[in-house]
């Protein structure tokens, strides 16, 4: 929200107080068209739902299977969210407020699991601890069987390990903006650190913790890869399975999708309330100097981030690296040989998606950054659907659209790219919009006074100035497309294999060694995608 303020201020001081005169009707129409296209999958989904007989729909929704799916999903969200809070908050407190040894290093390391796509994490865990995994191979000869990693415990464990950084990061931000002199004030008023934490710090970081928890909840609801690999029946997994069956399965998938969207909408509504409810301090925020001395427990406390790093980074990367080293002839069998063309396919489709997304983001971002009208806000909001709509649901809607209305497009690259655009448009709009807001309006006024037309002003002044934002947006979309699982799996043209679909096929077949190289490549790619995010968030590490 605060990003809007500079724009308003500039609008007031810039030349030409009238806001509308800079944005022509053409831009508004273009932005509206993009918004409509992005919203269309929701329309297809609803259209499909109306075709289902209401009585049948009711019995499907209330069937024991559907109820179980709902219960499983909510249970998983509850467990992962709670566990993420229990893990993320203490880590944030340790790294921000105490004299933990190497706390800068730990800050980076415990945030890093966000870089590993959770399906890769799940794959690594299954390949290490699953029935055909490394541990089973080791212990098998001794007649020891490993407990199963499948189901709720494994799914919850893996998801927690790779998404708790959301809570860590939002809590850390809250703690960094906390004014340390309040803690000192509490201590001079006779509270020890623990009492002061409870009475002064906790109430003020609650909104940060909640924001992170809701991000975790959204992620868990929409994540398909982890529950699919760990075989736990939540919405996304069941929708995917039903999508690939015919007859009543498709109807069931549609209804489950709507149910999932409803649950997601509830979480989003909660999130928007939390976002607006910040009790901002008015003092100067203190620096990130430690305020609590752990004394001789410093090294004991360091065990927590060390263990977390072991399980989130060292173990998965270690497992993948081990498979890589060992992928000798014994692992090369079967008809699933890796080909460099798969990587080329990934790069190709991601580049096309990045280009298309940025081109479509520009009118929306420009309009939203330059106009205060309700229509500008509405078009911008519409593009955020990609955040709210789980990939599996989007895939389903587009499958339905392709089969019913555009058979020529079904299972083609354009439809796949369109799915990527819908999914990642918010990223591009976000970075472009902030650079549009960063353009001093006086420059535009100066160009106009010097005789340049509106179009020429845009080309000669605005575009060069927002180009870095566009590039950053494109890079982000490129990298996230590379690792996108859900829509790629559902919509990729037959015979078009990317890194992601390859990993999926070999992991389903149990050829873990095959997936090691592409999986490591994706981990690196995901790591790169964090760089623009960190740049945007400012370097506060």
């Amino acid at each position, binding site marked *: 929200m605060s990003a809007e303020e500079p724009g308003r201020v500039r609008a007031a001081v810039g030349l030409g107080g009238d806001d509308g005169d800079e944005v022509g009707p053409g831009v508004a129409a273009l932005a509206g068209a993009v918004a409509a296209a992005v919203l269309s999958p929701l329309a297809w989904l609803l259209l499909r739902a109306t075709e289902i007989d209401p009585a049948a729909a009711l019995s499907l929704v209330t069937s024991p299977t559907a109820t179980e799916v709902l219960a499983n999903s909510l249970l998983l969200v509850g467990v992962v969210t709670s566990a993420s809070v229990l893990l993320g908050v203490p880590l944030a407190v340790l790294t921000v407020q105490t004299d933990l040894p190497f706390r800068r290093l730990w800050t980076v390391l415990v945030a890093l699991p966000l870089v590993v796509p959770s399906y890769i994490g799940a794959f690594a865990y299954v390949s290490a601890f699953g029935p055909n995994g490394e541990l089973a191979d080791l212990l098998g000869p001794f007649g020891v069987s490993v407990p199963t990693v499948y189901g709720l415990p494994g799914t919850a464990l893996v998801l927690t390990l790779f998404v708790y950084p959301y809570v860590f990061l939002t809590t850390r931000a809250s703690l960094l903006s906390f004014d340390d002199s309040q803690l000192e*004030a509490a*201590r*001079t*008023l006779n*509270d020890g650190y623990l*009492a002061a934490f409870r009475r002064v710090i906790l109430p003020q970081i609650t909104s940060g913790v909640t924001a992170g928890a809701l991000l975790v909840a959204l992620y868990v609801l929409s994540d398909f890869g982890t529950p699919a690999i760990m075989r736990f029946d939540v919405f996304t997994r069941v929708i995917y399975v039903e999508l690939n069956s015919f007859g009543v399965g498709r109807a069931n998938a549609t209804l489950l999708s709507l149910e999932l969207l409803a649950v997601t909408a509830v979480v989003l509504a909660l999130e928007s309330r939390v976002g607006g409810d910040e*009790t*901002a301090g008015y*003092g100067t925020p203190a620096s990130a100097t430690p305020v609590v001395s752990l004394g001789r427990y410093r090294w004991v406390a360091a065990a927590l981030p060390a263990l977390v790093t072991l399980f989130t980074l060292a173990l998965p990367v270690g497992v993948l690296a081990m498979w890589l080293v060992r992928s000798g002839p014994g692992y090369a069998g079967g008809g699933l040989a890796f080909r460099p063309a798969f990587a080329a396919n990934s790069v190709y489709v991601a580049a096309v998606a990045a280009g298309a997304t940025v081109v479509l983001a520009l009118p929306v971002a420009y309009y939203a950054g330059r106009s205060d009208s309700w229509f500008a806000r509405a078009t911008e909001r519409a593009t955020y659907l990609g955040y709210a709509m789980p990939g599996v649901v989007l895939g389903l809607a587009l499958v339905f659209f392709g089969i019913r209305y555009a058979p020529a497009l079904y299972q083609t690259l354009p439809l796949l790219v369109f799915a990527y655009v819908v999914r990642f448009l918010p990223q591009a709009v976000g970075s472009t919009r902030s650079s549009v807001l960063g353009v001093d309006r006086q420059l535009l006024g100066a160009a106009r006074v010097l005789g340049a037309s509106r179009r020429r002003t845009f080309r000669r002044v605005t575009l060069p100035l927002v180009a870095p934002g566009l590039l950053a947006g494109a890079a982000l979309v490129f990298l996230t497309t590379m690792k996108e699982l859900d829509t790629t799996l559902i919509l990729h043209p037959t015979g078009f294999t990317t890194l992601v679909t390859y990993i999926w096929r070999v992991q389903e077949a149990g050829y873990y060694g095959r997936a090691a190289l592409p999986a490591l490549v994706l981990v690196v790619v995901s790591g790169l995608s964090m760089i623009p995010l960190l740049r945007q968030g400012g370097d506060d590490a």
Partner: protein
Amino acid sequence: MRNAGSEEATRSPPRTDDDTGAETVLELSGVRKAYRSETAVSGVDLAVERGELLTLLGPSGCGKTTTLRLIAGLDAPTEGTVTVGGETVAGDGAVTPPEERDVGMVFQEFALFPHLTVAENVAFGLDDLDDAATDARVDELLDLVGLAAYGDRAPGDLSGGQRQRVALARSLAPEPDVLLLDEPFSNLDVRLRVEMREEVKRILDEAGVTAVSVTHDQEEALSISDRVAVMHDGRIEQVGAPGDVFEHPESRFVASFLGQADFLPARVGESAVETPLGSYARARLKGVTDDYRGATVDALVRPDDLRATPTADADADGRVVGRRYAGPSFVYRVELADGTVVSCLHNHTEEFAVGTPVTVELVADHPLAWYPDR
């Protein structure tokens, strides 16, 4: 004796009042604080008596805020002892945490808890009272600071002056032995600052609390304190009543820090002293002894001690080299024949151009402080 060799004399412990036998509530002895390689406080001795307001005054980086934090327990001294209310709270390696000391503190930015109301802020330190007693005490304090009607407000809705009153009420509520104020007025605008000085002084007097405040503003220190301790480079240079310290600074630093100070070379003779402004009776230098006969000392002259009069070039002591207009007055900088530059305070109606040749006359009606030549 007050002036002679005063820069060395500051190493000795400051005086303690022996005329009243007043009770010492806070005592620092040999307190030193070093951060890694830097020494922030290098040997502070200080005794504060019950009910008085003592101000630590000095430029930024002189160690005054560190001293305050050492008293509060927010930092631990490297060496030395701190005693509050007869109890040693730091010394011999043992340090009592702030929550177990009877000290209150008003923070520079006030540090009010934004998630609590004004009344809840004031009640924060009142853990050991029951609800009724807590409410009564909160009402009493809000009354004292003139905010009786503001109990339900959020701190964010208050003005700067009101926040400061709440911060005062909150720190006074648990009846601390010593109240510490860290640059309490620096966060207020200039007009409010003067008003709040008097208000805070009234509240502290009414509460009868012993207080130590910290500031870099000499006017503030002189106007509200019972005693002022001037700090420089981690040490206390001089402690005393505001008037004493201002009129009889024991060191050049104290003289320069409290108001505009210039130093006039003065050669001590039998009964007269020779200065670039001419010859004056020796008695105009405070307490100068025969030991200094024949020596040249530096006499402290402030702008109101001197007057400039325009004159012909031949009679001039020097010429005007700069002037500062401050509304009601002018301060002229005059460079004397020997290169010494002094300042003269004049009414705003007396306007001389830069370059004007002038005679300068010593008009001070009090003996001048002086320092051995460097």
